[in-house]
């Protein structure tokens, strides 16, 4: 590995640490994103918990069904929050100064994305504490690692998407778009009930939705057992989402140079 590349990684990590510092130094800004997935999980469990009694429902405990959705919600909220922070940096002029730095554009983007991937672990830990305390089943170490791995991967994808939007609109006015676009896309999956039990129009959308495959992968261990057959479609869908979102973000950051 060349010195130049090592230097780029060091810079990426420095920018990632800047993003992480915000969690400790401006806690008020990060609290909503940390608690929102847990609130959503408990709310959905309370309201739709009886769905598990329907014939064809594939989980014994509704909490096992709904807890994994929290990991993806956490990724969506964290990615959006990263984009909102970037929009604020752009409005304040801080990002313009970063663009003058003699560093490749992917490094500037990489730091922001890495911070999202690490930050997402906070809401995930809160979800696990609340979920397991409330009686959710232990998914096994492999199930847990898969949940966290997918949350990190999807947080990176959503940070790229929201960051791309921030660079496109260069304003905090785009915040609702960052927050709602990923959230609504994820809502169009089998969150509340198995895919076979969805309304036909929603089933059709869910089958084309990359979040659906990621959700099925994250649900392993909580509902059923961990196996490669349920893992690889989720990996392909999440990696595809990341590749598309990263391309969009790189395109926007290069457009800022122009």
């Amino acid at each position, binding site marked *: 590995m060349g010195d130049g590349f090592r230097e780029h990684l060091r810079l990426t990590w420095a920018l990632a640490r800047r993003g992480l510092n915000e969690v400790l130094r401006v806690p008020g800004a990060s609290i909503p994103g940390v608690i929102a997935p847990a609130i959503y999980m408990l709310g959905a469990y309370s309201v739709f918990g009886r*769905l598990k009694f329907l014939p064809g429902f594939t989980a014994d405990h509704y909490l096992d069904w709904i807890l994994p959705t929290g990991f993806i919600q956490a990724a969506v909220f964290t990615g959006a929050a990263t984009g909102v922070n970037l929009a604020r940096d752009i409005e304040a002029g801080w990002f313009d100064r970063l663009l003058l730095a003699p560093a490749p554009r992917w490094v500037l983007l990489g730091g922001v994305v890495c911070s999202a991937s690490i930050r997402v672990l906070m809401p995930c830990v809160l979800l696990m504490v609340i979920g397991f305390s409330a009686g959710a089943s232990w998914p096994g170490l492999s199930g847990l690692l898969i949940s966290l791995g997918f949350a990190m991967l999807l947080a990176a994808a959503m940070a790229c998407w929201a960051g791309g939007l921030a660079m496109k609109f260069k304003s905090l006015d785009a915040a609702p778009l960052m927050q709602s676009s990923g959230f609504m896309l994820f809502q169009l999956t089998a969150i509340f009930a198995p895919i076979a039990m969805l*309304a036909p129009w929603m089933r059709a959308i869910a089958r084309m939705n990359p979040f659906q495959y990621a959700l099925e992968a994250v649900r392993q261990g909580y509902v059923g057992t961990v196996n490669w057959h349920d893992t690889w479609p989720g990996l392909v869908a999440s990696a595809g989402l990341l590749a598309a979102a990263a391309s969009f973000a790189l395109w926007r950051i290069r457009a800022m140079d122009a």
Partner: protein
Amino acid sequence: MIVFARIVWAIAKRSIVRIARRPQSLMPIFLVPTMFLAVTSGGAARAVDLPGFPQVESYFHFAVAGAIVQSTMLGGLMTGISTSIDVDSGFFDRLIVAPVPRSALVLGRVLGGGVVAVGQALLYLALAAAFGAPVRGGMAGVAVVMMLASLCAASLGGLATALALRAQAQWVQGMFPIVFVVIFLSSAFFPRELLTGPAAAIARYNPISYIAEGIREPIITGLNATIELKAFAVAAALTLVTTLVAVWSLRVRLGTD
């Protein structure tokens, strides 16, 4: 008295025109509840097969009332946000020096939110009819839904206005997630008897449950005097209390109390 009513209506009209002229403010009160309605209707479609679930055309038919409650609660919150904007911009201070009763400044805003809620309710009822979920209570049912929706928005509007007069704008905006929590902890989207976890216990004491059930009954069954009386009593009491709190907040803000 007539002069007082005219001032209240003038303030209310300003709130209504303001919403009509700022389409971005319509997004949270229409788009969010409509998307949530679509997602829950598609995702929990089979809930109607559960034993004990009321006889309805579809889960969508059942959940329309929840969307009306959600939309009007968010509309009430917009009343508070609009007050915050007026306070921050200094417009509210100019209103204060006008030779009008100060309580009219609060009542007008609350009334404005209530009038907008009538339009919100009608929009969702039209949406429901378009997707095969008619109001079984007929025109009387529609009128009941409109009145309860109006009171629901007014009650939240009073609370949000009180907060806007005493705290910073961020606190009023921070009530958005709280609205969602309050709705989740009520019977707005699922029958009270079929809720699980903490919501099952809390929904019994949550006033939003009674308002949601009062709005739902004319839509899915027809008018039921007991349910409607309970809903009107709760909604009217809530509106009265929150409006009085808002008037008191204004007095405290002006140092007259």
